[in-house]
């Protein structure tokens, strides 16, 4: 059942142009940043360099790729529930002998698979330097994992926003709102005098940062898993409530 849902989402994602446009635009932007990093790095003398080439690339290239993934997830997710509510095609799933939890998981995995190529883009760019520069492949792998986990969270938020309204445009903006909130919430820490780092912990970029530095910490893994599960549970709740409204 979940397999059927995933298959349909993949098919729909691959035959419509949105994913291909996101990949092309993403690659153009990343290539530009890639060039800039290389140029800056090669322009500096050995003693002026504060970080290795891999670290420079991780922080800049993967950092930007995370922003691209953040913008892509809501766009890819809007079609999945919101668009189906609008077109009435959700009625097919709603009247079929399938659990709503299976629907949510199927759509989520479908979205995650569709957004995975976006997460692989920076690694592909970096790997072009194999043999030319001195690369830390372990760090590239860790950064890619971190980016993929961040994309997982973005997808869950995107799916949740998509379940809220039958207007895909509105769903995208709700998702952007939530994602931006999760991006800037860490800044609140500097506004308050407290030493409690809750706000810092809530923001996703703090956790991605450690992955980009090459550290896989259990607390970061837990953060992404926890919030992904939370938003998927909220989506399920929302779909159940639709039947009662």
């Amino acid at each position: 059942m979940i397999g059927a849902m995933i298959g349909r989402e993949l098919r729909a994602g691959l035959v419509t142009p949105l994913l291909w446009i996101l990949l092309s635009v993403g690659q153009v932007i990343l290539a530009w940043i890639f060039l800039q990093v290389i140029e800056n790095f090669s322009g500096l003398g050995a003693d002026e360099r504060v970080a290795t080439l891999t670290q420079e690339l991780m922080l800049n290239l993967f950092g930007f790729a995370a922003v691209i993934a953040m913008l892509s997830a809501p766009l890819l997710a809007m079609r999945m529930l919101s668009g189906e509510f609008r077109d009435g095609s959700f009625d097919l799933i709603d009247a079929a002998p399938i659990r709503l939890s299976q629907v949510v998981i199927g759509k989520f995995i479908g979205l995650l698979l569709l957004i995975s190529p976006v997460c692989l883009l920076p690694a592909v760019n970096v790997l072009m330097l194999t043999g030319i520069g001195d690369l830390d492949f372990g760090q590239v792998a860790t950064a890619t994992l971190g980016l993929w986990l961040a994309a997982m969270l973005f997808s869950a938020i995107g799916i949740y926003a998509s379940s809220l309204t039958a207007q895909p445009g509105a769903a995208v903006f709700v998702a952007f709102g939530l994602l931006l909130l999760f991006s800037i919430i860490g800044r609140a820490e500097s506004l308050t005098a407290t030493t409690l780092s809750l706000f810092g912990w809530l923001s996703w970029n703090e956790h991605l940062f450690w992955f980009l530095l090459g550290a896989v910490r259990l607390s970061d893994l837990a953060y992404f898993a926890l919030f992904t599960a939370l938003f998927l549970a909220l989506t399920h709740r929302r779909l159940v409530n639709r039947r009662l409204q």
Partner: protein
Amino acid sequence: METLLRVTALSRSFGSHAALSEASFSLERGEVLGLLGSNGAGKTTCLRLLSGMLAPTSGRIEILGIDLARHPLEARRHLGYLPEHPPLYPELRVDEYLAFCARLHQIPRRRIATAIAEAKCRCGLEDSGQRLIAKLSKGFRQRLGIAQAILHQPPLLILDEPTEGLDPFQMRALRGLIRELARDCGVILSSHLLPEVQAVCDRVAILHQGRIRFNDYLATAQPIYGWRLRLGASSTVVKLTDLPGITGAVVMGEDRYRVLLEDGVDSAELARQIIQAGFELHELVPERSDLERAFFDLLGVEEQG
């Protein structure tokens, strides 16, 4: 006969507005039930409740004896549903779409190809398997919607305005299909078209303001309620009512009348009387539409010519 569906005191409110109140009915195997009502009467709400897409405020729905609220998955397995707008994915091809529907309805993999071929054949889509749904015309989309509903051969079929968007030929073909399907399953269809319901249904439930006001079998030999006449220019209603055998006449338009006859007087006698009185008889048509009368009588609206 086996009871496929039993609905007991089903109610659904949206806020303070009661869309459906205390609806109770049942459906036997081999029966076609027509749900009739004006726009906003509660037909679609009723069908959405039956398909499990809406939860009832109160009441109970049993499909083949399985409570829909307690065992939703098991109950829905016996259900085929065509919503008001066919639930299609424009980016898929017809075959891909039907294969997805087959998997949703848990048809065993080895039977999927046969089931799809059969459903396409029944709905006249044999040559459309590779066509993109986005490119299909409205009539073909409706047919595809019906194909997905009958794909898994459900014993209970729920069709929300199935003839919407079909041309007269397709409409006739669909009526044939529904009658054929009704041989081994039960069908509920909604419509606001009286002749359509009359042509295809065994039983009719008329909904008005969320309540079932009429629920009865349609007699196959429908009684004649009156006669419609079109006479020559010299006719007047007063002259017409004076004729023997006529109990009453109503003007329906210029030189058009509706007359009621005494018991035992038939159309031949009526025609003879009219000719003898010196009128020109242009048309003489029996009025059989008992459902139409029931509909308008129930809704408290007098039929207008």
